[in-house]
Structures are given as C-alpha cells and as structure tokens.
C-alpha cells in the first residue's frame, strides 16, 4: 500500500498546488476498483472540474495473479489449465495460443480435424464474448433489458461448451497437438440449431437496442478514435476496424482453419462509441456464418497428435510469438524455451494493455463523468489481461 498511497498523496498535493497556481478547483474521483464495468477489478483516478474530466489515470493491479511467474515454475502441460484463467470473458484464445506456441517450438503437427474443432471453439467463444459485451455495453448506459437477454442466450453457448469440454467457463480443452476429446454425438447439429436461434435473436436485439433512437443519440460522437490516433496508439481488433482500418488477423495472417473460410472484414468509419458497438454487432452475424461453414467443412479423422509423456517433456530451445484475433484485439503469446521441462519465459500480450491504459486515459480527457463507464466498456477492456 505504501507506494500507492504515496502516489495518491502526491496526486492530491498536486491538485492543491494546481489549485493555488492556476486557481482551478477540481475534485479527485476514484472510479472502481469494484467492477466499474463487468469485466473485472480496475480503477480510474480522475481529476474533474465540475462534470468535465481534466485528467484520468488508469489504476490496474487488482487482479494481479503473477501468472507469468507461475508459468515459469510449472511443467509445460501444467500450464494448460492455467492460461485460460487470464481472460474471463474469452478464455479459449489463451489455450489456443499457448498450444500454438508449443506446437511451433516442438514441431508437433495438428490434425486437420483438431484445427477445425479449435476454430469452432474459438468462434463460439467469440459469440459468447460478444453477447457479454452487448449486455455490458447496454448496462453501462442503463438499459437493462439487453443484458438479461444476452446473458441468457450466452448460457446456451455455455451449455454447448459444457457438453463439449466438460466445463462452462474455463474449458481447458485445447492442448498442444490438438484437443483433449473429440466432438460428442450430435454436437454439430445442436450447434447449428443454436446458430439459427441466435440469428433470430440478434434481430430482436436490434429492435430493443441497436436500432433504438436512445442508443444512437447517446453514443454517436462519443469517445472518437480517428484513423491516425488508432495507428499511433497501436489499436488492434474491432476497435481498429471501427476507425475504418480493415485489419483482421484471421484474414491477414490466417491460422488454424481460417484459410479455408470465407468471411468479410467488417469496418465502420466513425471510430466513435457507436461504431465500436456496431462493428461487433455486425461481426456477430459474420461469425455465425463462419461457424456454419466450419460445421459444413468439418473433416473426419484424428483430433490429437501426442506429445511426449508430460512429466518428462522437454521443449526445444527457441522463441516464438503467436497471435490470434480475439474480441478485444490482438492477443499474443511470446514463449521462450531454454530446452528444459519448464518454460523460460511466457509473455502474454493482452489487447487491453494498450487499450486500457494509454488510450483510455487519452479518450477520457475532456469527457464527462457519465461517459467513463460506457467508453471504457466500448473499448472492451479486460483488466485481467492487463494484470495477468
């Protein structure tokens, strides 16, 4: 606490000094850390004059679990159950990335069917995360019908996850070389019918939320990120596409089964709150199309190429950076191996690290207090991947 309190004290004093020098009265506010959005504990320290924010300072650290350090002390397979816990709304990208990194280092091939199953899991997770996002965004605006609907629909996806992987949130399903079990009976049928339901539901969401005048009025022109700013702040993912730059890792450097899939990269031009939500809203439909294609093209065969006995498994010396497109932006893993049973260093590059600190601070400046939560949530910041 000491250092933090000192820092906070100095902030307060800074306030006083500034008041004296420039004779502006401002208040210091602490937003968070008790779940300012719905994604995790994260704080923002604000200096505000009246309702206008003059300075914002992100204050992460409330979810620090030292995962990177822990991973250095565990055998390679033991990290598989750990990595998914880095991001709660969309855990599967972590599993996929970790497995991909180990596969690249060791040269284990992934069977074609396993690639498709992984892609299905990733896309399902994307749908679930977007439903989470829609609900969260609506809730930050005070519209509580949509969260009730979308969280309920998300549970249908979680039911399917439970059937496939044995768990609802932390699936621990992918492992180096493939996946841990084959698809259960009738899984693709159930998934297909769920997709049809979701297609109908998203239209109903339009009615109460996305097309609603209230939503449009409230969000257009709020928290604008223009093209230049997006590039300057290394923005990735849907946030970047909302600023008019058509860049999607699935398209540009395709991984897993994405090379075989046809889909469009969705962009919006305004770069404001509304665009960021609508990019995701339109991608939701695109993802349903991707999943339908995956179900059609799913090949048969093996789903796992085995690795050596995990207790004595040594991974070849080397380093590799792998990345995937998550709902929040570019998710990357940098794995360094020194040839022993345990990884030398695993660095997790969460998208929120860039979006959640520098970009957020910049965006909040000049905004009003009521807009903090919506802006923060529109960027889809996931504090657990900042802290790790």
């Amino acid at each position: 606490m000491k250092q933090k309190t000192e820092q906070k004290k100095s902030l307060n004093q800074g306030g006083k000094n500034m008041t004296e020098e420039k004779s502006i009265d401002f208040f210091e506010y602490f937003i968070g850390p008790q779940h300012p959005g719905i994604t995790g504990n994260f704080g923002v320290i604000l200096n505000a004059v009246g309702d206008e924010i003059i300075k914002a300072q992100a204050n992460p650290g409330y979810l620090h679990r030292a995962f990177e350090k822990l991973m250095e002390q565990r055998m390679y397979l033991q990290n598989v159950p750990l990595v998914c816990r880095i991001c709660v709304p969309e855990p599967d990208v972590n599993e996929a990335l970790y497995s991909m990194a180990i596969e690249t280092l060791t040269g284990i091939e992934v069977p074609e069917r396993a690639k498709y199953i992984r892609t299905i899991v990733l896309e399902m997770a994307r749908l679930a995360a977007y439903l989470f996002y829609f609900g969260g965004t609506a809730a930050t605006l005070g519209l509580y019908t949509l969260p009730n609907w979308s969280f309920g629909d998300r549970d249908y996806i979680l039911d399917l996850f439970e059937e496939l992987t044995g768990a609802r949130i932390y699936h621990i399903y992918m492992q180096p070389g493939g996946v841990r079990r084959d698809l259960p009976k009738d899984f693709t049928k159930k998934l297909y019918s769920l997709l049809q339901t979701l297609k109908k539901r998203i239209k109903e969401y339009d009615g109460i939320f996305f097309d609603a005048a209230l939503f449009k009025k409230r969000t257009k022109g709020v928290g604008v990120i223009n093209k230049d700013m997006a590039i300057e702040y290394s923005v990735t993912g849907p946030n970047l596409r909302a600023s008019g730059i058509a860049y999607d890792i699935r398209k540009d450097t395709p991984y897993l089964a994405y090379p075989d899939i046809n889909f469009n990269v969705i962009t919006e031009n305004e770069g404001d709150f509304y665009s960021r939500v609508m990019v995701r809203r339109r991608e939701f439909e695109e993802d349903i199309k991707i999943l339908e294609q995956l179900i059609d093209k799913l090949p048969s065969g093996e789903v796992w190429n085995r690795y050596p006995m995990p207790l004595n498994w040594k991974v070849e010396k080397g380093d590799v950076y792998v990345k995937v497109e998550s709902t929040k932006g570019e998710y990357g893993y940098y794995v360094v191996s020194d040839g022993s049973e345990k990884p030398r260093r695993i660095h997790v590059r969460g998208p929120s690290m860039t979006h959640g600190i520098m970009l957020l601070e910049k965006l909040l400046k000049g905004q009003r207090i009521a807009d903090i939560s919506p802006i923060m949530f529109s960027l889809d910041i996931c504090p657990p991947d900042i802290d790790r």
Partner: protein
Amino acid sequence: MAWNDILKPLSGWKFLFKKPHTIRYPKEDKIPSERYRGIHTNMIDKCIGCGSCEKICMNQAITMKEMDVEVKEGTTNLRPVVDHGRCCYCGLCVDICPTGSLWLSRDYRHLSEDIDTFIIDPNVKEKEREGWQKAPEFSLIPPERGKMEEIPPEKRVKSFMEVFVGYTEPIAKEEAQRCLGCGLCVDACATHMHIPDYLKAIREGNNEEAVRIMFKNNPLSEICGTVCTHFCENVCPVGIIGEPVAIQWEKEFATRTIEDYKKIIDTTIKEKKERVAVVGAGPAGLSFAFYLRLKGYKIDVFEKYEKPGGMMLLGIPSYRLPRKVIEKEIKFITSTGVKIHTGTQIGKKKTFKELLKKYSAVFVATGNTKPYTMGIPGEEGKDTLQAISFLYDVNTGKKIDLKGKKVLVVGGGNVAMDAIRTSRRLGADVYLSYRRREVDMPADELERKEAKEEGIEFMIQTLPIEVIREKGKIKAVKYVPTDMDFSEKGKRPKPVPRMNDVRTLEVDIIIEAIGQGPDLTYLEQEFGESLKIEKGKPVVDKNLMCSIKGLFFGGDMANKQNDIVSAVADGRRAAEGVHNYLQNK
C-alpha cells in the same frame, strides 16, 4: 433519426408473457453434461497407487495417503486424497491415470463452513456418476514403446548369432521419457535397482551416471539387460495403457555404451584381514564376491567348470546372451581383486568343512543342477535328453547333429524355450508340449513370439503319457489333451488330462525341460542331520545363513524364483549378511 427507431424498442414487450429461459420456477437442478468435470472419485481396488495424479497436479491438490488396502504385486498402499479447495478441475489427473480408476464425477456441489471438509477422500468401491473419465486414445502416456530393429526369423535360425539388436541412442532417450517415476518397478525388482533414477540419467544423455546407479545394486547389469525375467516391466503401470517401458533394453543400451566399467565406477577398497570363500561362480557367487570385495574382504571363488559364469554361460545359448557380455562383466569383477579358481569342485577333494576352517565364512551358490523327470513309461533311454545337460553340451561346443530329426520338448519355461530354439538352430523339426494354456507359460512373451516366428509348433494343453520305443529307440509319444480346472482361486489353473482322447506323435528325440532342483548330495554327506533341509532346499535365515555357523546359501538353490536377477539379489543380500555376521562375531 427515424421515428421508427423510437418505436422499435417497444417490440421487447412481446416477450412479457414468455417463459423465462434461464431462471426456472420452481427451481430445477441442472443435470451436468456427460463430460462434466466435478468432484473426484477413485475406485480404491482398481487404483494401484502409482502417484502419477499427484505428480501431474499443478496445484498440489492431490496427496497420496497410506490406506488400509490389500497390497498386491505392482501396487502400493497409497491412495489419492483430494483437497477441493485447491483443485481446479482440469482433469489432467484423470488423463494421466494409467488404470482409469480415477474420474471426475458429475457432482459439483459441496457447501460447508468447515474448510477441512473440502479435503475429500474420493475412494469408492463401485462406479458412480461418471463425468470426465479416462479415454484410452487420449491418455497422456504414449502407449507404444520405442521400436527396436529385428533380425528376420529366417536369418535367425541359421546360426547362433545374437538375436538381440538393442536400442540406438535417440530411441533410448525417447523411450526413457515414458517413465512415470512411480517406482513400482523398484519394488518388483529382486535387486531393487533404482530404475527411475537411471532412466532419468539416460534421457539426460548421461549413460555413465546411469551405469553407476545400476552397479550399486547389480554388478551383472548388462547380462540382466539382455536376459532378465524383468518383473519390473510386468508391473510397470504404463503397461496397462500399452506396452510397458522397455526397462531391460534401456539397461542394455546404457551398459553397452560403456566400454570399461573400471573407468567410471569407483572401486577403491580398504583391505580387511578376513577371507571369505565362495562356492560356485554363477550370478549369485559373482555378485556376492563383488559386493563383499568392495567392503574389503579377500575373496576366493571356487568353480567346478573351466570357466566362470555358471548357468549364464552353460545354460543360456549364445544367440540370447553373447559370451563377450559375460566376459566383460566377469573381467570387471575380477579386476577388483576377486580370485576365481576354476576347475575346483568342492565336496570331492576339498571338503566344505575344510573351507569353513580356513575361511571366516563360506557362501554356497551352486545352483539347480539336478533335473526333474516326467516319470512316464518308456521315458528312460539315451535319446531322452535333459534340457540343461543338452544346453550344456551345445554351449561347451560338443557337436550334436539334429538335422532332419523330430524333437519334442516338454515344458513351458525359459529353459524349454532355449531348448526348442537351440534344437531349431541345430536343424531339427521341433514340437513343444505344454500342459497349461499359453498365457500360463512362465516363459517370456518375446521368447514365445520369436520361437513361433522361427517355425516351432506349440502343442498347448497337452500332456505326454507314454513313450513308445522300438528296438530301444524312441518311435513315438502318446499324449492326451488337457482341460483347465480353475477351482483353486489365486493359483495357476490345474491341468486335467482327458484320458479317453489318446493321440500319438512320431518323434526321434525327447527333451525334458520341466524344472530342476539343487544337488545337495555332498553337503548332506558332510553335515548330515545338522544341515536343515526343507522341500529340497537348505533352510536359511534373513542373512541367508543356514543352521551351520558361517555357512551361507544363495541363488537358485536357496530361493524360489530361480532366475539370474534373484540370484544377484541373493548375492548382494548375503554379502550384507556375511558382513554383519563377521562384524558381530
């Protein structure tokens, strides 16, 4: 802004009277899916207590605790206890469990204010509420062992060349990775070689260290690497999933890479005054001599035959155990200062009593030299051979021609296998008669497979009842098929001959390989009643000393297993015993 957009949200009202899809009134329990990963359950009788679940657990949630269970061969009394406060329900423990006794059930609720109740003993007797369970094709243990190059059978039968090729370095390293490190093999091995330790050294590429570990328990490691009965592999839990770790071949590989043991093993000796005599330079005698010599005693080994090695040299054919391997190991043992007097039989000129006077202690390991016979009509004659004398003749270079002859070998042990394969190499057509089923055969599975490949006919569940002779020569054998009687539980099934179904087989030579016992004639003559004998074997205490002070017994003549590795173990144990005896004298 269209007017439509203002009215659209009203469409939400149409759901007002619809049934909610997540919250259910009255409350219904959700039934978890078939793969659900809930609270642990473990079949206590199926579990072997290897502790792999404890090792793979990343949260140290599993503790192996000693429990009141029956300890069979290849199991321990340890069973997992799970702390569900630490468990993350990943199911890695289930995927690595070799037996499939552990699974995650579909129970997911446990509520209590007491933290201690979260430490759950998952052990049950019967299967229940299975959720995430073992799937053989997704087991984390690779089921197949490293492939070894094989010589084709047509080529093998032509000569007595070595049939065993051995591992190459990359395959040996890969194979050593399959070890779970449970140590059940150490319990099963008669010499308790520290197998997981030397496998670790092998996979790290440190063969010297591996050999050093081996020689702590077994000075005939390379011989055991070639011809051991490998009880270690029989209990290896990896064998439940697929093929057990090739412990024997790993041992052979590591010892083969070392040319001179003297260079890597520390054999500095602090000399002592006492002298100890050993009778019989077989595996027991040699290992005894080695370990006692390392303790500083002066050792004299007396061997009846011209070369040391005992049954290893005279009983085992050279295609199975190359002579250079025996020579290499004996050379190392003699290099420590052990003196071997060959061609000296104790009991005839020199007596045991003389030895006992001259030496502080005497270790006798003369092995099983007296073969058993079937005791059926017409059995006796020149053309009824005893397997061990037959093998002795072949191994000492006596010319025996069996070309075109029909040979019947009776028995199912490794000696029988040696007899059939040796006869085959000498050009005979060979039949093997065994009275039980093939799975009951004491012979090694690999030996059986290779013998069949070499064109030997296995007559399983048959029993010879009479030998028909014509002018003193064998013409045919009468035999009957047998049925299996499983009434005695826990024992091998009893063969019951079907006496009304007599068949005949024309043969020229019969070789009997139905076991052998120790020859105690000289000992009985000398010591008479004062030497206690039970079931044809001398009675020994835990130090392997018999009823006569200073006289120790070991090897085949004193133990039940009758194999090399038990003999080596006896030798080591007797060395400790003699040391204790002389220290406390």
